[in-house]
């Protein structure tokens, strides 16, 4: 049994310790907001936060995250940065197909949580690992800047 803390809830799960967190989330816990894109940490679709840091869940073994807190797209709206990022994503209509956007939002939220006013180079560094085939990069950049400018959003607004 492996203990996994996801969005504040601890799950006891019976899986091999080398199983990537991505597949535990999707196929065992049924949390499908985190996406499979490449399986090699090349595209960022599977990004979640581990103690607030953006990580690629497709290459992170579940055995390596014991005692640490995982946050996924399903709960990022509970964090101040996540709320602002989601609101900015909606304001600018960032997503197209939307498949990569969970990962984009997790990376962007981690960036803003650690750097409230990122410069373009900071955005490049934080977001270069997240591929979008629909080409929403320009809007992502603009939305991160908008989120950085935004006043804190109350939790009530977090429901979207």
């Amino acid at each position: 049994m492996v203990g996994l803390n996801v969005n504040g809830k601890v799950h006891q799960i019976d899986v091999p310790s080398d199983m990537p967190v991505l597949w535990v989330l999707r196929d065992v816990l049924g949390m499908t907001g985190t996406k499979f894109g490449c399986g090699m940490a090349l595209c960022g679709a599977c990004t979640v936060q581990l103690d607030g840091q953006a990580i690629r869940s497709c290459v992170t073994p579940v055995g390596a995250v014991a005692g640490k807190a995982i946050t996924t797209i399903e709960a990022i709206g509970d964090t101040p940065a996540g709320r602002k990022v989601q609101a900015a994503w909606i304001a600018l209509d960032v997503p197209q197909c939307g498949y990569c956007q969970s990962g984009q939002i997790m990376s962007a939220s981690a960036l803003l949580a650690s750097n409230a006013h990122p410069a373009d180079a900071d955005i490049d560094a934080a977001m270069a690992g997240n591929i979008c085939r629909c080409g929403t990069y320009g809007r992502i950049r603009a939305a991160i800047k908008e989120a950085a400018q935004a006043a804190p959003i109350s939790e009530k607004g977090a429901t979207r």
Partner: protein
Amino acid sequence: MTTVSRRAFVTVLAAVGGGLLVGYRVGDERRVATATIGSASAATPRGFAPNAFIRIGPDGGITLIMPQVEMGQGTYTSMPMLLAEELEVVPDQIRLEHAPPDNKLYANQFFGEQMTGASSSVRAFYEPLRRAGATARAMLVAAAAASWNVDPGSCRAQKGVVTHTPSGRTLTYGVLAAKAAALPVPDKVTLKDPKDFSLLGTPAKRLDTPSKVNGTAQYGIDVRLPGMLIATVAASPVLGGKVTGIDEQKAKAVPGVRQIVQLDDAVAVVADHMWAAKQGLAALAVRWDDGPNAKLSTADIVQGLAKASETAGVTARKDGDPVSVLAGAATKVEAVYESPFLAHVTMEPMNCTVHVRKDGCEVWTGSQVLSRAQATAAAVTGFPLEKVVVHNHLLGGGFGRRLEVDYVTQAVRIAKQVDAPLKVVWTREEDVQHDVYRPYYYDRIAAGLDPRGTPVVWTHRIVGPAIVARFLPPAFKDGIDIDAVDGAVQLLYDIPAIQVEHVRHEEPVLNTGFWRGVGVTHNNFVIESFVDELAATSKQDPVAFRRALLGKSPRAMALLDVAAKEAGWGKPLPRGHGRGVALLYSGWGTYLAQVAEVEVAGSGDVRVHRIVCAVDCGRIVNPDIVRAQIESGVVYGISAALWGEVTLKNGRVEQSNFHNYRVLRMNEAPPIDVHLVRNNEAPGGIGEPGTAVTAPSLGNAIFAATGKRIRKLPLQTGL
């Protein structure tokens, strides 16, 4: 091309009621996952459903059924806007549903079947959906007028409410639903004058955004069913190869692996979860007979194309007497252009969930061709169509990849052997190596210039497969593949002698099909690069040279001027930088002018600094979505133009994942300025033009920066 009669659209709901509808609350802004999959009934007896696109329940719930699928291009906003404008409802009043497979109810008039592709959704449904909305509105107004015993002309509808203007009395659509349902469907309805539009032409918010920022959006890969197992698959590494034997022992020893499925051309490992399936597949020893393609490499394929290019093709356009004009031209310019195989690489890898039962088959997937998905499942299982239920989902990218149903066919073949609902998920490696690729094209192009450098003749010979002949045989007429020559036969430049030919040369190894921009993407690269070559031969400015040839294309000329002005054409640039221009016009009906600014480093690395687009797509449904699609097309186009290339060695695709099939990333993405020209012309397609115009503008910018003309994509390889 076939057309669908209006009758097909104004059909009572009985037909819809026969199928299962997949409910999906796209506009829901609550946190809870809101996808409801299952049997959404047809209208309740007292509901109102005047056609296959609208259902209004007695509770006032307004459901719009989406004939075109959402793969990022904004159809789940633009299609509702068309309906809502005439129905007189506002976006937050509506609920969306994926249409079930039904070629009679949901055919795209350009294809004669249910299909989302070729940048056709707005063009195909601009009038039919408005008509569907107006029909429903007219019936609701008539029902209200009858309730009040007044003239319908004295009533107006707005935001789902009918008001009797003189008295101020009101009735909601929900209250009117039962009464409206009893009225005859009118033969004629009056559509709004565009000047009265309140929604069309506005940057209305996308209805699918909220679910796409909180993880609740449901793609095919997200399907979860009770008792469902998960499989991953390996098809023969060489297309045409066969499985000759497998050793299951090590694979079966992987915890969580349940079953190994062997097909003649593929193997699949069925497990409790994807990780076990992947581990099991890695542990599975498979012996393959690689078949007849085992020795073929890219060079062999190109050699075949080059040889075919020496022969005449089917003439798709002929103006004047190109042969004799070319023979007598003062200056003759000739070139060969090559465009490589390309993979689509949608972010959501191919997947399909299937449950084959004794009494029927159910399929959950994302497809651009739902009725084909249903048909292939029926063919594989032997069930009649009505026993095959297909649930569509949001598509995590399409780009033409999900116009093919190979992944559905394969999943059903595997699921037939499994006694449980089965989700088959391809790894990225499988996705890259078993795509239905954009074909390799080989083009011979020539022009003659008069002594002043003006083109007097243009001949363009396109060599490649006829995708349309396979994909849509009724559209393949007189040996002309309308896709292979798209963008080439519409050449905008006023040249007295023109010949465009297609030499059909089928691809011997790989499966090939449509890829964003389809034939236009390759043709526009050839045409606009070559026009630039002619300008250089004539020692003329590329914009001025084009402008002089656009006397008969005022829309194109106007756009060229906008793009050149906005891009600062002619202003000095730093050393190593260059600007390139390209124009686009094709069967999509959209005009586009683009100026790219690039920098070529001493190492040869290309960086795109800025892209400026001027777009004339006629009447605009949603300008923000048009902008988004141009931005999207350009980014997709930059990836392909600079780096996109699938190569073969010993019958195997050499690329496998994002490390060796490079795509543009955030830190490499340039600002993209989009300038929209507004007019009242017919709507043009917008999903693909941005992609099709980008390779030539980049190639021309590289030429401006370096003096090097690259005639073979990808551009970076030529530097």
